[in-house]
């Protein structure tokens, strides 16, 4: 395992250095823009997104009955994933006037349908779980 770790370390240092050297070839304004997006991503996650999720999680645990936690957690993670994937398209349907074949859906409608399906499945999963629990004597 030591050999594998050493190889990984060396390969990693080499690849990482190569990537950084390619980045350093960029012009200063481009590099600044990269730096903004790089640090912005970390800050947005660590200082905004993660604390917000923690707060919502704590609140949900107080409000929701315990039986709903598991299914609810799955629904919540799926919803967050859909929100993020939708973010670049949601308000941008038909944003390219010269090219109607890109961003050519009603994204708001699709997003709402997807989230409704996710939470319908959450309710369904919970109902099924209760039926199964009733059927198995403890």
């Amino acid at each position, binding site marked *: 395992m030591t050999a594998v*770790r050493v190889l*990984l*370390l060396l*390969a*990693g*240092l080499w*690849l*990482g250095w*190569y*990537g*950084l050297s*390619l*980045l350093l*070839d*960029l012009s200063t*304004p481009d590099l600044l823009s*990269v730096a*903004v*997006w*790089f640090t912005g*991503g*970390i800050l947005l*996650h660590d200082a905004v997104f*993660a604390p917000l*999720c*923690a707060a919502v*999680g*704590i609140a949900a645990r107080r409000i929701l009955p315990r039986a709903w936690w*598991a299914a609810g957690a*799955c629904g*919540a*993670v*799926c919803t*967050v*994933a*859909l929100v*993020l*994937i*939708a*973010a*670049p*398209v949601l308000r*941008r349907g038909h*944003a*390219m006037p*010269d*090219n*109607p*074949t*890109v*961003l*050519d*859906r009603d*994204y708001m*409608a*699709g*997003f709402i*349908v*997807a989230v409704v399906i*996710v939470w319908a499945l959450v309710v369904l999963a919970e109902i099924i779980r209760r039926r199964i629990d009733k059927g198995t004597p403890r």
Partner: protein
Amino acid sequence: MNTRTSTGAGSSTARGPEIVARVGIALGAAVLVCFVTGLLSHWIQHPPHWFWWPANPAWLYRLTQGLHVISGVAAIPLLLVKLWAVYPRLFQRPLIGPPLRALERGSIALLVGATIFQLSTGLLNTAQYYPWKFFFPTTHYAMAYVVVGALAVHLAVKLPVIRKALSRPVDSDPDTPSASPADTSGHHRVSRRVVLVAAGLSATAATLAVAGQTVPFLRWAAVLAPRSGQGPQGVPVNRSAKAAGISEHARALDYRLTVIVGDQRRGFSRAELLALPQASARLPIACVEGWSASADWSGVRLRDLLAAVGAYRGGDVRFTSLERGGLYNSSLLPQRHAVDTNTLVALSLNGETLDLDHGYPCRLIAPNRPGVLQTKWLSAIEVLT
């Protein structure tokens, strides 16, 4: 790795190396698929001298680029769950500490920052949204090495922890060894198994929401895909005739396609191209941005067209567009693609005259190539020696 004991208030015991290692493997696999498929696409467009990309099977590039974007999208929820599972470690004391610890934290910052950077800008790129200054392809390519490099360093550091975590059941709890998954009533948490299920389900949901832009039988579910697969003659467009500014030249009555083979040169009007023997091929057009569509193309076989001008003795072939500007106004077709029976100078698409947005009067369509290299609105074809 004692996330449970050292994190203080607000921590949940659903977090733990058992989760981190398992979600991390899925995330690492997705990142690796992204890296390899991205590298392939880069090499096809900027081939190093040793690189060889086949003309067949025709669907291979479609597959690799579809995988690139699908695995990138799946990686987004996996990354969030992984970061959630290690989040309390961010606040571990000392914040920086001795050099080795500082180095490890630095490599993790690089890994997290670069991964968030790649996934967020990559996703925005598929939606053709560019709220930054840098040129996306160059930066995406460079940052990919940073991600994979930092990932390898991270693995080198964590390998013993990962092995240990994988050898334990997901819901095992070293603090209370007897606790079974069903016996979690004393813990204020969902089980770790639920966290894993949530990670899997959210990756599936995210994938389903976009995969249909390249997988035809999933089109119905792709509610968040930037492309529905529709367009003129049933095929989406990446660069429109209007954006390219070629409409006038493409429709000009004196349009000629110049073909140069050795010291022979000949101009073809569209009618003359149509008078040559026609061939057809069912080929996908696949974009770097992850969408693709299969279509029936017909026109003149490239090798027949070259033969009509002079003897093709091998060599790459340069295709030049009527478009003056633009990054992709010319492309170099390797010899093995040039001689393929399915490589056409296409004149029609799905049974109709090629739409202006698809490259009228004629365009290149060759198997197993990125869409940006299938030059539209051809003005010249030249055999390079």
